[in-house]
């Protein structure tokens, strides 16, 4: 039955140790750090928490996070945006094309503009013409790729140092550090002490050589939270994604808000592409996005359609990606992390009396332990797969408690028309 009774309110799980949510999150993060540190000490894979890894992780997480943020805007207004990847491609091209001629900041703006164009195409298709959201999104992915290939041939082929598949290099953006911090923390990190050196490594990784665009990205996450959850604009936008007919009955211009949301979504995805072409590398290259739009979508789902969770998701993917890029030995150590996580999950499932889930978790935990003990290194292809396998694992584990905006993916038609 569709109605809930007063007598049977939804059960609420008792919060862990009676802590409020932010403190609980902090506690989880700290516990994770302790586990990671333990495993580093046991395996000697010092790259697990080194400054270099963390720095690379941030660099890899930002485009994923920005794409995910784009997805969040769009889905909160009820439009599924599979086209993030295509909008990212457009953005990376825009940045590469303008970046080498007019400077990196101009490239950033162009990336956003190209992304917005992609978003508007998606909005016209889904909101105005009622095309299925997934169909339109896939079309935009194909269109984005095709359009940039064509434009690259027209605009970049004769450029100095560029070609049909890549742009000339741009000047990049400054990467400031907190002065003196690196010198202070490096000796501590190189001692490889339990926990202390890990914290030092992570802090050093977070606060040295941070691109200005990374700071912008983090501000955008905060801004998104404020805009969507603390303003009337945001309430209206979210109401459109939850129940457009209720919103309409209160005079909210449903289609207009969907347009806002999808345009912003495109702009953020474009910026994600721009980040790849300006910060992560210094030029546009065909195939540069490498499916990060989809991973961004996964990060958003992992984050339960909320900015904070999305940041955690993006961080996770960035981290695993950084590991596989930098150090295969460290990826091997990740097997032990997987073991620890699955074991923890098994205990939780046992506690909640979910016997089957617990059994499956335990089997895989044991398997990953056996695998770890019997090998010294993972085969190359598996190492490369790490971020994608993580995506799959995390989503299948997290999917049970997630809640998407109720009207997301539904084509909206105004009442009585």
């Amino acid at each position: 039955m569709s109605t809930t009774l007063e007598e049977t309110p939804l059960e609420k799980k008792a919060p862990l140790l009676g802590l409020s949510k932010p403190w609980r999150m902090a506690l989880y993060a700290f516990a994770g750090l302790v586990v990671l540190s333990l495993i580093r000490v046991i395996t000697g894979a010092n790259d697990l928490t080194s400054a270099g890894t963390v720095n690379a992780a941030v660099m890899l997480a930002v485009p994923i996070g920005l794409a995910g943020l784009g997805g969040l805007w769009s889905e909160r207004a009820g439009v599924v945006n599979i086209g993030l990847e295509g909008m990212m491609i457009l953005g990376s091209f825009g940045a590469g094309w303008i970046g080498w001629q007019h400077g990196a900041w101009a490239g950033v703006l162009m990336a956003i503009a190209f992304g917005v164009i992609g978003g508007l195409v998606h909005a016209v298709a889904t909101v105005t013409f009622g095309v299925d959201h997934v169909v339109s999104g896939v079309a935009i992915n194909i269109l984005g790729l095709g359009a940039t290939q064509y434009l690259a041939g027209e605009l970049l082929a004769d450029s100095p140092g560029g070609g049909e598949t890549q742009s000339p290099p741009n000047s990049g953006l400054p990467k400031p550090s907190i002065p003196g911090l690196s010198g202070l923390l490096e000796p501590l990190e190189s001692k490889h002490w339990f926990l202390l050196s890990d914290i030092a490594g992570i802090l050093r990784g977070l606060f040295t050589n941070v691109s200005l665009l990374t700071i912008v990205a983090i501000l955008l996450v905060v801004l998104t939270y404020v805009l969507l959850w603390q303003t009337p604009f945001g309430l209206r936008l979210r109401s459109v994604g939850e129940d457009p007919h209720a919103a309409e009955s209160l005079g909210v211009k449903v289609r207009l808000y969907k347009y806002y949301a999808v345009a912003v979504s495109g702009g953020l995805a474009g910026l994600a592409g721009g980040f790849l072409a300006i910060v992560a590398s210094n030029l546009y290259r065909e195939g540069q996005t490498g499916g990060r739009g989809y991973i961004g979508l996964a990060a958003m789902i992992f984050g339960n359609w909320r900015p904070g969770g999305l940041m955690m998701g993006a961080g996770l993917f960035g981290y695993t990606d950084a590991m596989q890029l930098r150090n295969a030995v460290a990826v091997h150590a990740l097997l032990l992390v997987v073991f620890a996580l699955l074991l923890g999950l098994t205990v939780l499932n046992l506690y909640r009396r979910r016997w089957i889930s617990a059994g499956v978790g335990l089997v895989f935990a044991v398997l990953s332990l056996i695998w770890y003990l019997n090998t010294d290194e993972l085969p190359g292809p598996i190492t490369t797969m790490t971020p994608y396998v993580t995506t799959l694992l995390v989503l299948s584990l997290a999917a049970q408690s997630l809640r998407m905006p109720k009207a997301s993916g539904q084509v909206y038609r105004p009442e009585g028309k």
Partner: protein
Amino acid sequence: MKPESESAGVPAVELKGITKRFPGVVANRDVNLRVMPGTVHAVVGENGAGKSTLMKTLYGMHKPDEGTITLNGEQVVLHNPSDAIARGVGMVHQHFMLADNLTVLENIVLGAEPKRWGGFGLNRAAARTRIREIGKQYGLEVDPDVLVENLGVGDRQRVEIIKVLYRGARVLVLDEPTAVLVPQEVDALFEALQVLKAQGLSIIFISHKLDEVRSVADDITVIRRGTTVATADPKTVSSRQLAELMVGSELPSPQTSESTVTDRPVLEMKHVELVKDGRHLLRDVTLTIHAGEVLGLAGVEGNGQAELVESIMGMRTVDGGTITLAAENITTWTTRRRREAGIGYIPEDRHRHGLILDAPLWENRVLGHQTRHPNTSGPLVNRAGARADTERIVGEYDVRTPSIDVLASSLSGGNQQKLIVGREMSGNPKLLIAAHPTRGVDVGAQAAIWDLLRNARAEGLAVLLISADLDELIGLSDSLTVILRGELVAQVDPSTVTPEQLGSAMTGAGEAA
């Protein structure tokens, strides 16, 4: 709103000569309505008589083709709901317009948010204060910070009413407000309406429940076939007279004749348990339905009725107990095997479960009988057989349709339901489960469906009847069982129980008679 106009005898709302056409139909024709300030004005009529169309006109959801709308003596043109809201007209929709995943506060202020940070931020504190004030002033208290999905039906309705009051409405339109409420909640609603009325607000109350209308309304306007046919004084008019005005002829009743109950059990459930996430959806359910017996299951929606039906149908696997059909243990059977063994099912939501709306009638006839004569010959569908049998159903069950090739979606609710009843009655069922068989159908079809259920009973079927319409439940049932939070809590005798007693048993408020 000008207070002086309210005392001067100017109507708060006056509709004159409203006509509204849709392609192919005239939904409203020359409708006239006068609502005085500080009164409850009931608009009654059958389903499909044009009440909702009229109210949408008043709420600016569409413009009338002819006629005028006058609010407090000033003729207005309403282009959209915002216009109506700005002029103090608020609407409480029959299907609540609330977003489940937003809080009460967010639902209430949406579109009329109090601002802060220089007009940029949402001022939740101010909203909270205002909502509490309205709660105190009108006796409509509700916690602003819970999610709407955690509220019961009565509370949701309260939120809807606060929503329109928050926008400063002086005229409230309530579209079938009692359809989803149990009697106790209805009483609470009526008390709230008295408070609103005492404060000078006008209430337009749309309903087809005549006893309620007579008890709450100050004036009554009757609509039949799209036009206003009469006004009545609730103090002098009887329900019967009102009904005749509504229907234009005599009203049918759900009474059954003499008992046909036998001592031959058809369906027996013993100690059936259904558990999900540690919560009992059904707890120790034991019941027996005999051949020729209608067992009524009364309960507020969401107390396990759907789960009980799905357990019998095999759509859910029970976690304990046994289910027996005609002395055979069917507990572990698949849904298809159960259907073949003789269970017919009229589902609660015919759009989601009973029909494929985008398929023609004869294909819908095959559904659920896709392995049986006359629909198949060997592994193939027997088109000719299925079509011929669909023609039989259309004839026997009076399904009004131009042909059996039209899509199910083009039939009215009543005719869709008659098609389902006909389908489920074919193939010699032993047990018929009827979940809300007359929900959303008009009075004519309702009478026909009641007849069909009575015939089924006379033919010796066991019938499990679930309904939110307590009169229907009491009238048709041979025995009545009350379900509350997944348990069968009381047996009542339908020949002596009143709807009020049944209602209080349903909420667990008191002992049943």
